[in-house]
């Protein structure tokens, strides 16, 4: 068994498919997978199984100080403190649909032709076919760089609506919401200000690629029992060969036992998918403000500074 380069008819000669044409086949097979993915992640309200869970933190103002004769000095006014906000564990998975089984052997002439080392046309074996079409597609599906060949797999985005993707919860539910202190909400004239005045900075959404179908531009060639060569359909999902592709990509993605099963994790091994999920906080030492109301001298320290990333979590895709 080996990865073969499928043959095609270029209008004049029978030649090997180009790298680009083979990539189009991977994209087409990924599309077949995306119609009913067998390795899924879901967005849940809580207790998701994809660990580690993520916790949002932010700064809040220090408690206001009051004195009847003078402002309490900056050094004695309470410092801004960290608020540990919502814990997010909203992703569950990967869940494997193991109802499928491998497509049956299509027989001696059921698989595409390739040009062998003697420059003869030869039919791929079933093992060649798996290496050439199924495993090569599964390899392309775990790339960090998301293309049509990663169709049906998951990513993280900061927008609820992304072209070619479906937001997994279906209801715009973020898997993490990063909040920070809203510095514009704190004013000296409002002392004593409410300590915790957050604003949402970034929402992170789990998205699954759901790109439209594009048929390969180069058709595979097949032999028949008479030794004649025919060209496979360029635009059809229902050929025997294409049906086998659809069955096998779903089966191998969820149940392959030779290291090509798809899996996801947070911060583990594999390629990063989409944006890292970050928790940010303001990093200032406190914005000391005062307010005098008759003989009531008030002071308070508000959150300030620039946003700094405190924690980073990444969704990874990997073979297991």
């Amino acid at each position, binding site marked *: 068994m080996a990865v073969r380069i499928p043959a095609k008819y270029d209008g004049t000669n029978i030649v090997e498919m180009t790298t680009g044409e083979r990539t189009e086949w991977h994209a087409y097979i990924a599309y077949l997978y995306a119609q009913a993915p067998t390795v899924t992640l879901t967005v849940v309200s809580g207790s998701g199984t994809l660990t580690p869970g993520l916790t949002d933190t932010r700064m809040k103002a220090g408690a206001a100080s009051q004195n009847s004769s003078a402002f309490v000095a*900056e050094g004695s006014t309470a410092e801004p403190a960290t608020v540990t906000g919502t814990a997010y564990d909203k992703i569950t998975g990967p869940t494997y649909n193991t109802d499928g089984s491998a497509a049956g052997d299509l027989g001696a002439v059921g698989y595409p032709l390739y040009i062998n080392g003697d420059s003869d046309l030869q039919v791929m074996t079933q093992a060649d076919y798996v290496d050439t079409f199924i495993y090569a597609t599964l390899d392309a599906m775990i*790339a*960090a*760089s*998301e*293309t049509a060949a990663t169709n049906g797999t998951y990513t993280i*985005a*900061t*927008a609820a*609506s*992304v*072209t*070619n993707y479906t937001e997994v919860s279906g209801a715009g539910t973020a898997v993490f919401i990063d909040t920070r202190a809203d510095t514009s909400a704190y004013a000296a004239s409002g002392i004593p200000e409410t300590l915790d005045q957050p604003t949402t900075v*970034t929402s992170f959404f789990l998205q699954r690629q759901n790109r439209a179908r594009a048929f390969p531009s180069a058709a595979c060639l097949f032999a028949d029992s008479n030794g004649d060569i025919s060209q496979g359909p360029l635009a059809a999902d229902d050929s025997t060969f294409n049906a086998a592709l659809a069955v096998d990509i779903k089966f191998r993605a969820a149940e392959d036992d030779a290291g090509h099963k798809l899996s996801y994790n947070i911060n583990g091994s594999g*390629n*990063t998918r*989409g*944006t*890292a*999920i*970050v928790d*940010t906080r303001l*990093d*200032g*030492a406190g914005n000391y403000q005062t307010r005098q109301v008759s003989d009531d001298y008030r002071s308070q320290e508000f959150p300030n*500074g*620039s*946003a*700094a*990333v*405190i924690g*980073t979590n*990444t969704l990874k895709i990997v073979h297991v």
Partner: protein
Amino acid sequence: MAYLWSDKITDYYYSNPELDTVAVMWTDPEDGLVREHYIKVDETDEQWRDFVAEVPYDKIDERTMVRNEEFREQFREAFRNYSETHVETEYVDRTKPFEDIFIDFVSTYNKEDSAQKEQLFKFKLKVFELDIVKNSKSDDKFKNAKAFIRKAENPVDVLLGYMVFANDAELKMADTEKFEVEGVYVPIK
């Protein structure tokens, strides 16, 4: 599309003093909004390698410095406004001898202290600005040294990383894949 940010980058910068995460701002052609995308600094990660192939380390350093300076200027402006409207003003004690400031920074560095973390951040950026670092070759030795400086959690490690450029020191890697550094060999010159 390879990445959501591909060909749509409007800004980028290190988003924390540890220099381990980069914020990439990109403009969404669907709605014209500028969106955030974060990438962990990880030489083993394909997305990070693709990003630095498009935006080199030097450019990220440069943009981060400009952005931080913009924030500092905003802070200075706010401080000037404050001092003009308040009679009592606190002054920074600048009478401390340089050697005391230096030894305090090196020997009593506290990575939990946000002010000291900011100093370490500025220190790293200063090192990256040095010609000997900025103009170094792009082989693994110097790339690893830059990564070591970026990940450094104290000033001594930053100086050790600098020695690779200035003193022909060598990083000894315990695990190249995970970027675990065993130590730094510094030859006597």
